[in-house]
Structures are given as structure tokens and as C-alpha cells.
């Protein structure tokens, strides 16, 4: 999906964080370009084509959030992931409202970061792939009718479960974290004390597994879930 030429710009002044970000980018077979200040980051964003730009907030010279509008105005189609120590719900909402495509709070898990970056890279590819029907072998998701079928057998799902399976399907084969599910499916930007998401995923998973005869949603321990109907039944 991604080629070694896919470049990701990282604008981060903290060297340890910058290294971790660069390492995660390389894990995804992309090229990291690291800038250390707001001005340099903004300049770099205008000079080359980037698929994703990772912007810190409290940078020497400015706030990464303010850069988003400038980057967009300059004609860049890069998706922006804000990674910031300003990690409260209100900060995230502010960032998303000001045009960030995703917002990750520090400190972050390497897995969480990779999951977010992958989702952004995929979103780039999937922008046009918005058909009515998403198919994984015998599993069919009809987005207009909002129904799920396995081998033409209708599987009753609640409206939330449908949104959940749709989000999974759009990120099929990749790890999706609980935080991503909470943010994208429930539009909630705080960390509930209990893992409520697990219960919902568990229910959907049982329904799909019963109908398909094998696991459809797999657990990525400590990180999240992977939706992969065609994976071997090894788990």
C-alpha cells in the first residue's frame, strides 16, 4: 500500500519524542523528515509533498494547530496528525475543530501512534472508495441499507454495532485501538474509567463469529483489535 517514497513530515522539538515518531514512521515503511521548530516545519510542509504531517503544539515559534490552516492554504493535501502534551479532551476537540485530521496526546504508545498513522495513510487511499457495498469474502456490509450479511444470511446489529463494523471494515487488517473506536464510533474524547468499548466489540465479535464460523475480529493484546475476516483461524 505504501511505498518507500511515502514521506511523512514530523515537526517536534523534543528529541526523544522525535526519535520515537521517526521510528514509528519507518516501521510503516515511510520516510520521516524531522523539523524542530514551527517555522522550519511550516517551510518544509510547503517545499515537498507529504502524505501525513505530524505536528507538535507547544513548539519554539508557535502552535502546530495554527499551522494547519496555513498548510492547507498553501495547497498541501497532507493529512495532519497533532501529537501534543496538550492532551485533555478540550485540547483534542479544539485541535479537531481547527482542522487536524487526528489528535494524539502525549505520552503515547508506539502502537497507538502506528495505528493512527496507518489509519491516516489509509484514509488517503480510501477517499474514493465509498461504495454502497463492502465485501470480505462471504461477509457483506451494505452501507446504505445499514445491514450486515454473511453468506446472504442477515445478521441483526444495533445501529452502534453497524457503525463499529463499518469503522473496522474501513481499517480492515490493521490494528484499531480502543481510543480510536471511542473517538470515531462514539465521538467521545475522554478516557472512560472502564473499558466499555470492549463489551461492545465483544458482542459484535460473537455475532460475527457465530455466523461466519470463525473469528472475524481479533484481539491485539494490550493495544486493540484487528478486523480481518480472511485471517487464518489460528487464534
Amino acid at each position: 500500500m505504501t511505498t518507500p517514497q511515502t514521506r511523512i513530515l514530523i515537526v517536534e522539538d523534543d528529541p526523544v519524542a522525535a526519535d520515537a515518531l521517526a521510528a514509528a514512521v519507518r516501521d510503516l515503511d515511510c520516510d520521516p523528515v524531522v523539523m524542530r521548530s514551527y517555522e522550519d516545519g511550516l517551510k518544509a510542509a510547503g517545499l515537498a509533498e507529504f502524505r501525513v504531517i505530524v505536528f507538535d503544539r507547544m513548539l519554539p515559534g508557535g502552535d502546530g494547530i495554527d499551522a494547519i490552516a496555513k498548510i492547507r492554504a498553501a495547497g498541501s493535501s497532507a493529512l495532519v496528525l497533532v501529537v501534543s502534551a496538550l492532551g485533555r479532551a478540550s485540547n483534542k476537540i479544539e485541535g479537531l475543530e481547527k482542522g487536524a485530521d487526528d489528535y494524539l496526546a502525549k505520552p503515547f504508545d508506539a502502537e497507538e501512534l502506528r495505528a493512527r498513522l496507518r489509519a491516516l495513510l489509509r484514509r488517503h487511499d480510501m477517499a474514493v472508495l465509498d461504495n454502497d457495498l463492502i465485501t470480505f469474502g462471504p461477509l457483506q456490509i451494505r452501507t446504505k441499507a445499514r445491514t450486515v450479511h454473511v453468506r446472504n444470511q442477515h445478521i441483526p446489529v444495533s445501529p452502534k454495532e453497524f457503525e463499529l463494523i463499518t469503522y473496522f471494515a474501513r481499517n480492515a487488517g490493521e490494528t484499531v485501538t480502543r481510543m480510536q473506536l471511542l473517538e470515531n464510533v462514539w465521538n467521545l474524547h475522554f478516557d472512560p474509567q472502564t473499558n466499555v468499548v470492549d463489551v461492545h466489540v465483544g458482542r459484535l465479535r460473537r455475532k460475527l463469529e457465530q455466523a461466519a464460523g470463525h473469528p472475524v475480529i481479533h484481539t491485539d493484546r494490550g493495544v486493540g483489535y484487528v478486523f480481518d475476516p480472511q485471517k487464518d483461524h489460528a487464534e
Partner: protein
Amino acid sequence: MLIVAAGIITLSLSAMALQYRITAQALEARQAEVLAADLTGFAQFYEQRRIPGLREAIEARAAVTPPDAALYLLQDRNGTTLAGNLPAWPEGLTKAGEMFAPLPAQDINLPGGQYRGVARDLPGGFPLLAARSQAPVTQTLADLRGTILWVAAGLSALALVAGWLVARAVVGRIHRVNTLADRVAEGDLSARLPDPRGSDEFGALETHFNAMLDRIEALNRATHRLSDNIAHELRTPLNRIRQRLDRIEGQDEAVAAIRADMAGTIRIFDSLLDISGAEAASGQRPGLVPLNLSEIAAEVFELYEPLAEDKGLAASAAIAPDAMILGERNLIAQLVSNLLDNAIKYCAPGDAVSLTLTVDGDRHVLSLADTGPGMPEDIRATMFDRFTRSARDRETSGHGLGLALVQAIATRHGAKLTLPSSDKGFRIDIAWPKLPRS
């Protein structure tokens, strides 16, 4: 203001009434003096030549006195008129007093007018009547009353107009300050009074107001900056630790435990910053948008429902549709989430948890009730304080910030929080102000 005007008018009217009475008394005294002078004159003639002398004196006096100004009458003992300007003794007029003393005087009402004077028998049975007309007095007093009436009317009108003008000026300037205070109370800390004018007390008040608001705004900004800085300065090193943890291999369990502890630490200071952020923004309009409280409550309930079911709780929701409020979606979702999370955490299988939203007057009341163990006695008084945990719940996870955040979020939205007593379990009611109809 009206009271002051009325007071001034009353005072002026009293002064004029006093003046009127003094004038009336002076006029009456003047009339009495004239009468006394007449009587003194008559007395002298009487002393010299008795009745004939008096008769001549009265004739002369009546001749030079304008008709109606005075009454004079002297008769003999048969009732025959000897002198005077009256044809006969007025009917029913009684006689009193001795000789030519000016007192006792009496009022004499005749068809031609009102008089005041003396009526008595002189020695030998000669009835004497001498009285002065009251007409000049009544006329003068009537004129005076008329004048007073006009002055009073003019004065009242003047006082009202002047009062209204002064009131408008004062109230207008107070209104400016009040409007500003309202705007600030609604959260617009940048509101100021334009061009503070004048060097009077109002000007000084406005200048003080502006200076005070400058200070509050600066402090508010500093607080925001401080919490941003706290977040940044703490999270950056925590992030380094986390990134270095990722490079440690072969000690997965220890690394996972450290990660969990770090996540807990961050959750605590996020909650603290959320609480103080919500408290600082309390009562402020900016940041609040029209929201459907019913939808949010239903969504969060739906998020928690399977969890409650899995735990063997009977969860139910009765949510009135389309309860519109001004709010911040994420905060409200967090409030409902904290309440449900707590209820589920403390209830045992078989207990019931219910979330209801009803309309009560000008408020939407969201209440959560459960049949769990209820709020332990030892923390009833402090349950909304930060870090309040009951000795009973040491085993349960948490930091005692959930309800503190619930209260801070409710306060930020101007919602009232009450804890109706219930026989069993815990119940909390939150009354949200309805969205004002635009």
C-alpha cells in the same frame, strides 16, 4: 427617585401652608386692631357725652366708612335705631361683653357678607353693634390660596422633570456599569466600558471597573497558560519515559505495569485540570452551544448498557426527547459517563440502575438512581471534594475525582445538583437550565 421628588414637593407645600396660616393670622389680627381702634374712639365719645356723643361718633364713622366694610348700630332700649348703617338688629344675634372692650368678639353672618365684631348692651339698655367685614381677609386669603396652588403645581412639575432628568442621567450611568457586569457574568471577560468619561464618582467607578476586569482577565489568562504549561512540562518527560520503555525488551509484565501506572497518573492530572478548567469557565457563555441533552444521555447510556447487563444489573433509561440546553458535548458525555460508571462499579448483580430525563418547569432534570450500597456515611459531606474516597471502597479502583468532576461540569453549565434521599442506593438529580428560546 419619585420619593425624593415627592418629599421635596411636600416640604415646599408645608412651608407655603405655614406661610398661609401666618398670613391669615396677621390679617385677622389687623382686622381686630381696626375694630379695637373704632371701639376706643367710641369709648372716648361715650365717656364725654354718653349716648348722644356716641350716636354722633357712630354717625360720623358710618358716613366715612365704605358700605360693606363695617357694621355699626346703636339702638335705644325700645329697639329704635339711633345711629349706624344697619336698618335693624340682626336676627338671632346674641349680646356679650362689657362696654367697649374688644373682646369677646364674635362672627356675624349677614346675607351681605361675613363680619367679626362685638354686640352688647351699654348701661341703660342701649344695644351696640360694631363689626368689621371679613371680606378683605377672605379675599386676600383666596388670592393667596390661588397663588399657592399655582406655585405648587409649577413646583411639582419642575421637581418631576428635574427629578426625571437627574434620575435618567444617574440611572443611565449605573445601567452602563450593570450591562458590563452582566456581560462579564456571561463570560465575556474582555468586555469593557468605552471611553470612561468625567472625573466625577461615576467616572472613577468606571475606571476602577475596567482596571479590575483587566486584572481578572490577566489572571484568567495566566491560569490557562499555567495549566497548559503543567500539562506540557509533565507530559513531555512522561512521554520520554514511555518511549524508552518501548525499547526495553524481555520484561513485558514490568513494562505493562509501569505503563498502566503512568496512564493512571495522567488520568489524575487530566481530571484535575478538567475540574479546574470547568470551574474557571463556570457561568461563561463562550464554548457552549445548543445541544440535545436527550441524545447525549441516550448515547452514553447505550455505551454503558451492555456493561451493566454483563454485570447482571437491570439498567433502564427513560429519557424525554429533545431536551435542548446550552452546553459542551464532551463534558456532558463525561458527566453522564462518570455517573453510570460509578453506579455500575458499586452495584452488585441484581441491583438496578436507572437514568431518567424529565422536564420540570424551566429545567431539564437528569437523574441517576441505583439500588446499590448508596453513598457511605463517612464521605457524605465531602463526596464532591477532590480525592474523596470512602474507607469502604479502598479495594475499588478510582481516585475520588469522578463526582468532583461531575459537580464542576454541572456548575459550568449552570446546572443544579441535588441528592434526594432514597430508601436504598444512591440518587443524584441534575437540573439543567433549558435553552432559552431565541
